[in-house]
């Protein structure tokens, strides 16, 4: 099976099937990336589409110095940041998240998704992003450091803090 990087190089040379293959590999992960960060599923779909369109537009500029995966998630992070800036509602979003979680919590308190949403809300912005990139996007420390423009050791320590905080919450829920 071809690696992502090989497929991108083939696509740069005009192979449509290479792009289709890449798209099939990353359609669900990219949509999941946006869906977990945005409340509106329709907007998450739009941004996932924009992410691939941006890839189509800029694929000529891609150089295989970085992994394709981190390149693609770099575009996704950029889009989601722009979306949050545009709406100017990062705080408001958290508040909505909180409200929704509280409402749903009343009827479906055992839902793991709701628990995670609520737990993530208590983390700092960078810690939350690092944890999500690690757990859901499965990026390495180095890839996360490159995307977040942070030293690798900082990524590791913040990830540790985030997991410890979640662990504490998990214990308190069980207790």
């Amino acid at each position, binding site marked *: 099976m071809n690696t992502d990087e090989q497929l991108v190089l083939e696509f740069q040379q005009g192979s449509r099937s290479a792009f289709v293959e890449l798209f099939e590999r990353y359609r669900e992960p990219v949509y999941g990336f946006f*869906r977990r960060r945005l409340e509106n599923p329709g907007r998450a779909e739009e941004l996932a*589409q924009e992410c*691939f369109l941006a890839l189509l*537009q800029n694929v000529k500029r891609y150089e295989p110095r970085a992994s394709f995966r981190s390149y693609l998630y770099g575009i996704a992070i950029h889009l989601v940041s722009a979306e949050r800036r545009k709406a100017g509602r990062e705080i408001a979003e958290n508040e909505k998240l909180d409200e929704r979680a509280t409402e749903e919590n009343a009827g479906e308190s055992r839902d*793991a998704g709701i628990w995670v949403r609520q737990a993530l809300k208590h983390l700092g912005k960078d810690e939350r992003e690092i944890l999500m990139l690690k757990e859901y996007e499965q990026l390495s420390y180095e890839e996360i450091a490159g995307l977040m423009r942070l030293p690798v050791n900082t990524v*590791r320590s913040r990830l540790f803090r985030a997991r410890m905080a*979640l662990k504490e919450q998990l214990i308190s829920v069980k207790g």
Partner: protein
Amino acid sequence: MDRSLQHAFDAEQIMAYLDGELEPQRAAALAGHLVSCAECQEAVRGFRAVSERMMGFEVEPAAQQIGATLLEALDSGNVSRNTGQAGGYEKKARVWQRLFFKPYAWAFAGIVVVLAILVIGIPTMHRSNEGLRRTLALTRLDPAFRVSQTLEQKYTDQVQQSDTAEPTPPSAVSGGRLQAPETLGPMIAQTASLSIVATNYDEASAAIERLAAAHGGYAEKLTAKTQTGSARGLSAALRIPAKQLDGFLADLRKLGHVEEESRENEEVSAQYVDLQARLKSARATEQRLIELLGTRTGKLSDVLDAERELARIRGEIESMQGQNAILVHRVTYATVQVELSEEYRERLSTTSKGTKIWNALVEGLGNLEDGAVAALIFLLAYGPSILFWLAALMLPAWLIWRRLRRPAQT
């Protein structure tokens, strides 16, 4: 997951091990340790529980529509972002929004502003009042300003006349007015320039003015230069009747060795004809106004308006007559610029070495003083501006530097 000090591995290392981020040797050692350490096994279980819990945050599958739209865009070759839901306006707004938050965009804007001020502002600030007055005069193209423009022209002419103390040419004035030399042929304003090295400087310098007078011309300006240790020189601006120009130049060439000679003929027929037409029209208007004032009666305000208009027209006529006279004079009298210099032989210096050293020392101290004063003036004149712009640009520069430094640390 609290780790006691006797453990060789802390919880963060266990986490890195589980993430596959620990160095191979360290990972092998930790794997061995985990077999026997119940506390570390508990830490591992804790991390795994968190990860498993997080995996419970599942999302619904992506809509198939995403793929269809994208592949359609790919096949059609239209891969602009407008294919998505975001419109072009929104995209542009986002670009500007991005630029707004970029420090380098601000730094670039600052540099552009500084350059614009340097390019546009400083020359304007240093322009003299004379230059400003001329600029204003040139921009006054509106008829309402013509009277003042004419007065200004008259004033300038008077100043020029008093500055140069031009003697009245002997044959150019006829009844107070200059006449066009040949109205049928082309009107040519001739200019000649000669650079001559005279073998007998005293004789040649005296001959220049005499020759000009002999050919019916006159010296407009004479400047003699005599400096110790260098050749003497004479610079003369002469006006010679156009018909006498060739003969005059031939006589000049006899004064010494001609190093450089040039002649230029500028046809001014079009300017002359245009000026005459405007003058004729203005005179006709003047005549009509005089007739109007003499024959018609009306309100006082109408009479005053007519007189004002008459005064304006007369001002224009005078101005045009002045221009006409200058033009005709340029044609009637050719301009000859003569640079006469002496054939110079260097003499042995009689100055002693001590005097030379003393002179050099005095000159050096003078230069030092001049330099210090110039530096002080520069600091006082530009220091506040430089400090201001440095302060304005330091913040974005610092932000850029910090931004560039981050990836380097990783």
